[in-house]
């Protein structure tokens, strides 16, 4: 333990580092974004293939997701739910894997007060959005679901971004913009998901990877 009376530069650098390490989760890996994006694109392709439609035809592929008159979910509903859950589990799993690896390399803890705060702030808009989409589904407002998921996901990212890398904020803003556009141009639900959860994750993920991880 040394004193830096004669080296204020080193002292200031250490202070800046401590402030950043203690208040921002900097170990979030860009590779988790890229993987999540690839998984989302595969998922969107499977969904398009399943309903036998080509993207950007203007037909809303999500219309088959509808409860039949006796309240029993139709087969399409179960298929989409199963597909979405599988994609989510794979994407979150990959995210945890790459981020744990990066946290170990940086000597940051993966589960502490900071990451808990990050997740809580991410989840508040996400849970609200989930309930909103459930209500939209029950009221038969299917066209609202895809844009709303992007909108609330974006809000969650912006809300959580003050506890992690600043890039997450811009990803969040892009998702919000995409969701808002989708609200006014209905009928492209799956395409929106492909762009929002697929392309945007790949773009921002690789940007983060090359900015913070590749050279180190």
């Amino acid at each position, binding site marked *: *333990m040394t004193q830096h009376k004669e080296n204020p530069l080193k002292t*200031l650098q250490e202070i800046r580092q*401590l402030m950043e390490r*203690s*208040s921002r989760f900097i170990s979030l890996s860009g590779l988790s974004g890229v993987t999540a994006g690839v998984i989302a694109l595969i998922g969107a392709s499977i969904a398009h293939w399943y309903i036998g439609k080509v993207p950007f035809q203007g037909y809303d592929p999500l219309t088959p997701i509808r409860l039949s008159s006796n309240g029993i979910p139709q087969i399409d509903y179960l298929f989409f739910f199963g597909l979405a859950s599988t994609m989510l589990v794979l994407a979150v799993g990959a995210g945890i894997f790459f981020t744990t690896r990066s946290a170990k390399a940086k000597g940051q803890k993966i589960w502490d*007060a900071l990451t808990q705060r990050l997740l809580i702030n991410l989840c508040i808009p996400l849970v609200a959005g989930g309930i909103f989409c459930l209500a939209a589904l029950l009221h038969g407002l299917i066209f609202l679901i895809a844009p709303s998921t992007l909108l609330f996901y974006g809000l969650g990212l912006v809300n959580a971004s003050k506890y992690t890398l600043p890039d997450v904020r811009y990803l969040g803003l892009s998702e919000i913009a995409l969701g808002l556009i989708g609200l006014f141009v209905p009928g492209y639900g799956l395409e929106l998901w492909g762009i929002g959860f697929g392309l945007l994750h790949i773009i921002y993920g690789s940007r983060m990877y090359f900015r913070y991880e590749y050279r180190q």
Partner: protein
Amino acid sequence: MKDIITKLQKVFDHRVRLGIMSILLVNDWVDFKTLREMLELTDGRLASHLKALEEAKFITIKKQFIGRKPNTSYQATADGKKAFNDHLDALEELLKLRE
């Protein structure tokens, strides 16, 4: 030059104390265990520096129980934040002189 030196606070004249104040400046309440891990210190060393900062009224202490375990958290006071920011400004001015 003399003016800058007088702005440097004697209480902050140690790496551990600078570390504690840096963490408390950007986080609200931080518990003992987190501080110890962030600064990679032993209990005794950390406690003695926390005590010095507390005596200067730069930090406040909150003791509570989480389950049956006692848990102590720390927060920078308004005075502490101001003093630490002044200290950082003085350090920066020193740097400018050297350039």
